[in-house]
C-alpha cells in the first residue's frame, strides 16, 4: 500500500478498501519507525493529521472525493500552515507557529489531502545537502551515510523512504530536482508564476517556485492539478486558465525532438552519472525521439549570476527577521542595535549569514552596477540561450546533478563545491523555465553502493504537461522510478 501510486490509493479509498485514517496511520507508523533515524520531518502533529484523515473519510463517504482526497502528503517546512510550527529550517523561526495558510496548503486542504507534517530542509532553502538545517541533517534512504540533497531534502527522503505518499518542495536553483535526483524520485519545478508563492517563505523571490516531489510523473501530474493556478495575492502569479496536467500523459513520443546541450556533458560530470544519462537517451530514441545537439553557451555563468542575484534578494527578504515582532530574539541586549545584532547572529546559521553578506555587498552603493545590474544582464542572455535552443528541440535533457548523493560532511566546508551541485539546474530558474528530474538508473561508486541518478527534462514555458508526458512514457518502459530503498530496521524495533 505504501508503495502504491496516488491514482491507485485514490481508487482504494474510493472503493473503501482502505480508509484515509488507516492509510494515514500506516504512514504515521512508518514515520514513528524510521523518522528518528532519517530526520525527514521537523514537525509532526498526529492529532491534527488524523483529524484531517477523519474529515477526508467523511468527504469520501459523502461521495464528494477528488483524486487526492484522503491521501497523506508532506509539506516542506517552507509553507506556512495555520497552527503548524513553520520554521523554514531555521533557529530564527524555531518557535514560529504560522497564523495563516500558504496558498499551496489551502489548495491541498481544499483537495482533501491529509498533511502528515512539515519536512526538513536547508535553512531558508539555502543549501544542496540539507546540512544547513537547524534541525539537523537528513539521511538519504538509499545510504544513511549520504545526504539526500537539498534544499528539499526532507521531502525527498520522506517520499523515497515511503514516509508519505508524495510531498511538496520548492526550487530556487535546483532544490526540487537535485534532491529528487539524489533520492530517486520524480520532481517537477514548474514555470515561474504557475504555483502561487503566497505563504511560501521567500528565499529569492524572482527564482522561488513550488512543485511536487513524488514517485512518478503521473503522481506529479495529479499534484500539479492541485498546486497550479492563479492567485491574486501573488503579483507574479500568472493568470492562465486551469489546465489538466494528466491530459497528455499517454501521448506517444514519436518525432519528439530532444535537445542535448553540449555544456551539460562536459568537464565536471561524474562518469557513472554520464553513462546512466546516455542509456536513458538511448531509451528515448527507442521511444521514437530524435536527438538534436544544442548549445547553451552561458551555462557556465549561471552559478556566478545566481550567487549575485539570489543572495541580493535574500539579504532583503530576510531583513524582516529582526526579533521585533516574531521569531528569535536574543535573551539579553543593551539597546536596539544590540538586539538586532545578537538576535540575527544567534538566529541565523553560517550559510544564511554568508548569503546575507554577499547580497548586502552586491547591492551596496558603488558595487550595484558591477554585480547586481551585470548579473541581471547576463540573466537575460541565459534566457535567450534557451529561447534559441527551443527553436531546434521540444525538450532539453541532461543530468539533473553532476554526481550521485555525496557523503554527509563531505562538502560542508567547501561552499563552492556545494554550489556546483546546481550547475545543471540553476539556469532554468534564471530563465523561469520548468524543469524536472526523473529516476534514470543507478551508478555504483567506489564503495560499491548503487545510488540513484536523475535525468533532467527541461521544457519551454508552460510545457509542464508535455514534460510529464515525456517522463511518463519513459516510466512505462522502465522501472527505475518504482525502485525503493531497503531501509535498515532501526535498532530497538522488532
Amino acid at each position, binding site marked *: 500500500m505504501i508503495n502504491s501510486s496516488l491514482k491507485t490509493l485514490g481508487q482504494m479509498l474510493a472503493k473503501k478498501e482502505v480508509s484515509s485514517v488507516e492509510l494515514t496511520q500506516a504512514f504515521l507508523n512508518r514515520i514513528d519507525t524510521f523518522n528518528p533515524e532519517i530526520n525527514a520531518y521537523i514537525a509532526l502533529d498526529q492529532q491534527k493529521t488524523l483529524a484531517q484523515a477523519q474529515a477526508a473519510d467523511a468527504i469520501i463517504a459523502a461521495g464528494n472525493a477528488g483524486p487526492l482526497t484522503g491521501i497523506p502528503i508532506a509539506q516542506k517546512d517552507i509553507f506556512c500552515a495555520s497552527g503548524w510550527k513553520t520554521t523554514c529550517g531555521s533557529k530564527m523561526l524555531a518557535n514560529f507557529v504560522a497564523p495563516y495558510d500558504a496558498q499551496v496548503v489551502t489548495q491541498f486542504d481544499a483537495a482533501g489531502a491529509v498533511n502528515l507534517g512539515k519536512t526538513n530542509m536547508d535553512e531558508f532553502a539555502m543549501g544542496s545537502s540539507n546540512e544547513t538545517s537547524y534541525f539537523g541533517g537528513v539521511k538519504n534512504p538509499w545510504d544513511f551515510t549520504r545526504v539526500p540533497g537539498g534544499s528539499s531534502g526532507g521531502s525527498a527522503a520522506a517520499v523515497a523512504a515511503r514516509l508519505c505518499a508524495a510531498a511538496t518542495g520548492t526550487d530556487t536553483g535546483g532544490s526540487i530536482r537535485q534532491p529528487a535526483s539524489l533520492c530517486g524520485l520524480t520532481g517537477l519545478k514548474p514555470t515561474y508564476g504557475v504555483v502561487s508563492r503566497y505563504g511560501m517563505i521567500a528565499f529569492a523571490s524572482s527564482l522561488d517556485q513550488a512543485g511536487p516531489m513524488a514517485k512518478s510523473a503521473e503522481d506529479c501530474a495529479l499534484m500539479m492539478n492541485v498546486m497550479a493556478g492563479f492567485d491574486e495575492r501573488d503579483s507574479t502569479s500568472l493568470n492562465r486558465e486551469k489546465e489538466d496536467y494528466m491530459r497528455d500523459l499517454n501521448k506517444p513520443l514519436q518525432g519528439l525532438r530532444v535537445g542535448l546541450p553540449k555544456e551539460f556533458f562536459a568537464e565536471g560530470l561524474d562518469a557513472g552519472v554520464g553513462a546512466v544519462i546516455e542509456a536513458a537517451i538511448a531509451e528515448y530514441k527507442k521511444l521514437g525521439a530524435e536527438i538534436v545537439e544544442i548549445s547553451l553557451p552561458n551555462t557556465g555563468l549561471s552559478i556566478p549570476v545566481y550567487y549575485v542575484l539570489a543572495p541580493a534578494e535574500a539579504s532583503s527578504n530576510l531583513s524582516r527577521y529582526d526579533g521585533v515582532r*516574531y521569531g528569535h530574539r536574543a535573551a539579553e541586549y543593551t539597546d536596539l542595535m544590540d538586539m538586532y545584532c545578537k538576535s540575527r547572529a544567534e538566529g541565523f546559521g553560517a550559510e544564511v549569514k554568508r548569503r546575507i553578506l554577499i547580497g548586502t555587498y552586491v547591492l551596496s552603493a558603488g558595487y550595484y552596477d558591477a554585480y547586481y545590474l551585470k548579473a541581471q544582464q547576463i540573466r537575460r542572455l541565459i534566457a535567450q540561450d534557451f529561447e534559441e535552443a527551443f527553436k531546434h528541440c521540444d525538450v532539453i535533457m541532461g543530468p539533473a546533478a553532476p554526481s550521485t548523493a555525496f557523503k554527509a560532511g563531505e562538502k560542508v566546508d567547501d561552499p563552492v563545491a556545494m554550489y556546483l551541485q546546481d550547475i545543471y539546474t540553476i539556469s532554468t530558474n534564471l530563465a523561469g523555465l520548468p524543469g524536472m528530474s526523473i529516476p534514470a538508473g543507478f551508478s555504483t561508486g567506489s564503495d560499491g553502493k548503487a545510488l540513484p541518478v536523475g535525468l533532467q527534462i527541461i521544457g519551454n514555458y508552460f510545457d509542464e504537461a508535455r514534460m510529464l508526458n515525456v517522463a511518463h512514457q519513459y516510466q512505462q518502459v522502465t522501472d527505475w522510478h518504482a525502485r525503493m530503498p531497503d531501509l535498515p530496521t532501526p535498532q530497538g524495533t522488532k
Partner: protein
Amino acid sequence: MEWEVVIGLETHTQLQTKTKIFSGASTAFGSEPNTQACEVSIALPGVLPVLNKEAVNCAIKFGLAVNAEITPRSVFARKNYFYPDLPKGYQISQYELPVVGKGAVTIQVPAAGKNPAYEKVVNITRAHLEEDAGKSVHGAVEGMSGIDLNRAGTPLLEIVTEPDMRSAAEAVAYAKKLHELVQWIGICDGNMQEGSFRCDVNVSVRPKGTDKLGTRREIKNLNSFKFMQQAIEFETRWQIETLEDGGTIQQATVLFNPDTGETRAMRSKEEANDYRYFPDPDLLPLEITEADKARVRAAMPELPEAMKARFESEYGLTAYDAATLTASRDVANYFVATVKAGADAKPAANWVMGAVSAKLNAEEKAITASPVSAVQLASLLKRIADNTISNNAAKQVFEAMWDGEGEVDAIIDAKGLKQVSDAGAIEAIIDEVLAANAAMVEEFKAGKEKAFNALVGQAMKASKGKANPAQVNEMLKKKLGA
C-alpha cells in the same frame, strides 16, 4: 554681501484610499494599535504585496493636475534599512523610475509690505508612490517601546520640487497651493494634524547672483504652514550667519522645534544609510496606458487653472479675483453656487473675497461651515441689485444673518433698512436740507465742489441712511442746476 536662499520641497501626501497600498487592511486613522495590521502589514514570513489600483489612480490624477509626464512603465524598488516600525526591513518605494515625472504648478505669492503679490511657476521633479511605516510608541508601557503597525503600508505620494523657491513666503505659497490641489483632485484629505500632508524642506543659501547651489540642510516633517515659515526663516538666518562668521554648512537633516522656533541637526548625512535600492521582485513593473490616463482624466473635476480661466471669460472677473476664488475648491464652489442662485458675478466675487472671508477667518471657520449659505448670500445681493437696500445696510443684514437672525427680507423689515426710492419723499428731504443749509448752497454756487458732497451727506443723514444715494445725487444736481 547679499544672500539668496534656495528652497526645494519634498511632500508626503497620504492618499485617500480605503485600504493600504499593498494589502487589504484599512487605512482609517485613530484605531486601537495594531487592529489594522493584517499579515502583510506585520510582514509575516511568506506574505506578498499586491498593488492597490486606487493608489495608482491617485498618482495619475496628480500627474494630470500638474501637467506632468506619466511614466508608462514605472518600477517599485525596495529601500532597505532596519527600524522597528518598518516591519519588512525595507520600504517599498519607487527609485529610478517614478510614476510621475516632470511637471509644474503656478503659485500666487501674496503681497508683503511694499512688495506686490506675484505669480511664479514651481517645477515638479517627480512624484512617486510608496508605503508609509508604522509608529514607535514610547512610554505606553513602562520601560518599553511599543510598535503600532496600523499606519504601516498606508499609501503615500511623495512629491518633489526643483530648488525653485527663493523665500519662505514662496515655499509656503507652494505648500499651500499643493495642499489645496491634492484636496481639489480628491487624492488627500489634507489633514496636517493627522500627518496626511507632511513637508520636508531643503534649504541652502548662496551669494546673490551666483549659480552654484550651497550645501543644503533638510528640515524634516513640517506639519503646519506657520512652522514652515518660521523654520525656513530661522534656518536661512542661521546659515547666513554661520557663513558670515567664516563657518561652513554640513549637509544634514534638521528638526524644527516649535517651542524655541529653532532648527537643530538630527543626524549628519555621513551617518546616512546606504539603502541598497533594487527593483522589488515581488511586484511587476507598473504599466499605465493612454486609456488609463483618459479614464482617470474623464473622472477628474475641473482643475483650478481651467476654472480660473473660465471665471475670467464667463463672469468677467479680473485675473486676480479669479485666482483668489479658485485658490480653494470649496471657495470656488461657494462662489459658483452664489452666482447660480441669482447673484451677479462681480458683487458675488467681492462679497465672497471680502465680508465672507473676513468673517470666516475671524472665526477660523471653513467656508463649507459658513453660517451664511451661498443661497442666502445670493438673496442678499439681489436686494442690493434691486435697490431694496444700500450696500451699507446690506452689511448689517449680513451680520444679522451670520448670527442666525433669519432670512434677508425678514431682517430688512425687522431692522427697517428698506431704501427710500420714492421720488416725492426724496424731493421733500432735499428741499428740507437745502433750506436748512443755505450757506453750503452758496459755497457750492461759488465753485466749491466739496459742498455738494456735504449736501448729499446731509440728505442721507436726514433719511436715516435709507434714501437711495443715486437718486439723492441726481435730484440734488437738478435742484442746484449743476
